[in-house]
């Protein structure tokens, strides 16, 4: 089987400031189809930088990145745009929703650039289904500043899923969510992963990382550990546990 993601000795050096920042210092990694990878690491360890590169938003300074066997360095900007559009779903650390634009329209956004073009009612139908997947169907007409942080995060996830990508990249998808909602989102990810979607996510919390199948730990732009998750958490069990805990807390108080 061909890896979805294959990077070899990847470097990313930022030259924007006074001194160059070596954010990623030689990472090699393979992610096979159907994997569910969690990337962990301290703040500033280069997780977002790596994700941006994986998402074809940024080009590496050095090293090779192949997505589905295609060397990204050989692709022009239109080909990269097409990959971002239908192959990859990207959830940003800071949501990146269009302000003053409804949740529905935000979710429809990738479909505006789809090839072949989709009819308007089909776009609407798919966007609503995607919002339903993250439990936000009843907030379709709200604009981002009428939504809580967690709800905005879920709109961003719905947008990433709307064109049915084969690779989901999520940078801190649960960073703004409470425990219960985090578990629900992980449930969505696990379901998508069970259906065959490859998922790579960044998280700070070990509790969240343990919903994945594989955990990668980064430090100072390098991979320090790469482990299989065992035992793995499932959202159904965790939800039941949280519900029981809540009930117990209620009984106590």
């Amino acid at each position, binding site marked *: 089987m061909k890896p979805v993601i294959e990077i070899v000795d990847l470097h990313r050096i930022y030259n924007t400031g006074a001194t160059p920042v070596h954010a990623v210092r030689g990472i090699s990694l393979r992610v096979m189809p159907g994997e569910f990878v969690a990337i962990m690491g301290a703040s500033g360890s280069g997780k977002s930088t790596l994700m*941006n590169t994986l*998402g074809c*938003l*940024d080009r590496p300074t050095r090293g090779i990145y192949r997505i589905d066997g295609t060397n990204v360095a050989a692709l022009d*900007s*239109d080909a990269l*745009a*097409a990959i*971002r*559009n*239908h192959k990859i779903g*990207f959830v*940003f650390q800071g949501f*990146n*929703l*269009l302000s*003053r634009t409804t949740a529905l329209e935000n979710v429809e*956004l*990738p479909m*505006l*650039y*789809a090839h072949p*073009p989709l*009819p*308007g009612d089909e776009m609407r139908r798919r966007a609503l289904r995607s919002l339903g997947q993250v439990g936000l169907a009843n907030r379709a007409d709200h604009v981002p500043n009428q939504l809580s942080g967690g709800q905005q995060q879920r709109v961003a996830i719905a*947008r990433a899923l709307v*064109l049915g990508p084969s690779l989901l990249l999520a940078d801190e998808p649960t960073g703004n969510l409470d425990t219960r909602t985090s578990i629900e989102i992980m449930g969505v990810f696990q379901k998508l992963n069970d259906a065959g979607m490859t998922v790579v996510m960044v998280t700070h919390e070990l509790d969240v990382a343990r919903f994945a199948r594989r955990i990668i730990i980064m430090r100072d732009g390098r991979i320090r550990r790469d482990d299989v998750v065992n035992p793995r958490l499932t959202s159904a069990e965790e939800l039941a546990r949280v519900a029981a805990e809540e009930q117990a807390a209620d009984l106590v108080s």
Partner: protein
Amino acid sequence: MKRLFAIIRVALRALRRNLMRTLLTMLGIIIGVTAVIGMVSIGTGARVQVEQQIAALGQNVVMIMAGNMSRGGMFSGMGGAPTLTLDDAVALRKEVDGVAYMSPEVRGNVQLVAGNLNWNASVMGVSHEYLDLRAWPLAEGDFFTEEDINGAARKVVLGQTTAKKLFEDASPIGATVRVKGIPFTVVGLLSAKGSNMMGQDQDDVALVPHTTAMRRLFGQNFLRSINVSATDASSIENVTTQISELLRQRHRILPGRDDDFMIRSQAEITEFATSTAKTMTGLLGAIAGVSLLVGGIGIMNIMLVSVTERTREIGIRLAVGARKRDIMRQFLTEAVLLSIVGGLIGIGVGMGVSSALAAQFNWPTLTPSYAIVGSFAFSAVIGIFFGYYPARKAAQLDPIEALRYE
């Protein structure tokens, strides 16, 4: 097609989001197009009117005026110099071939009194051929005859305005009018002619035989001008040459010296007037063009601001799969919509303003369809031209840099 609608919808939404700014940006184009449409409409209307007025001078008319502009000052020009005599006119009628009608002309502003009403009108001494010459029909009564001319009869034909001032709504035919205190009988009433190119009311006149005018009213033996009409358009030039030769000979002007008279044919006047109108239209058009250009620069300015403001939005669109050309198309569409909608509003306002002005000042206005199509196309071109640079700037953004933009 479907995609185009989607793009237009997105652009409209973006423009609606900042409605005030959108309107202010369009104002430049609106004013520019309004100016173009208004000026072209008024200019075209004016030209049509001038053409009508020139036609109203009569057919194939040649005017000989006393004095010469290029000789001496203002006063000696335009009929003020005593160089044309009645004998010149008589000789001209007799000796020049191809003359259909001839009328000498003297004039002065004189008080007319009828009953207890009085009015200052331009009294013109003309020949019995004057009305034929100017293709000016009578509304009532008769014109004076050759005998009246020879006998210096005290007969007067009134213009519409003069008649109204002296007789109000009653018929003036047969009544007596005192001109400079001398009683004249009203024999005819002219039909209305309206105002001339200079805006003077041509109906504010009283016509008397030129002999009567020279002897009894003005006591002068020289003419202001001689008007002649050629038998047909092709003989105008020939007639003009003959007149010039005859008058130079009669006035004993040595070869190489300037004429002491001026000959103007109707064709020349038409040419002058239309070329003046064309120059004016061109000039006004240029001014309007400049304001359109300023409007375009306004669009470019706002689009540049908009690109900067919406850098994050552009980043998001790029991140979800928009290609450079999608971004380019979106911003270009916005610019073109701005200018086209502005242009359409401008066309509407321009036509409204010019027809309002026309009604106010009694001008004819015509909005030629080329002006409408032209200004619509021009505003679209302005949108594309001035929208291109900002749109390209937007499309050149790097997705990750754009997303990071605060």
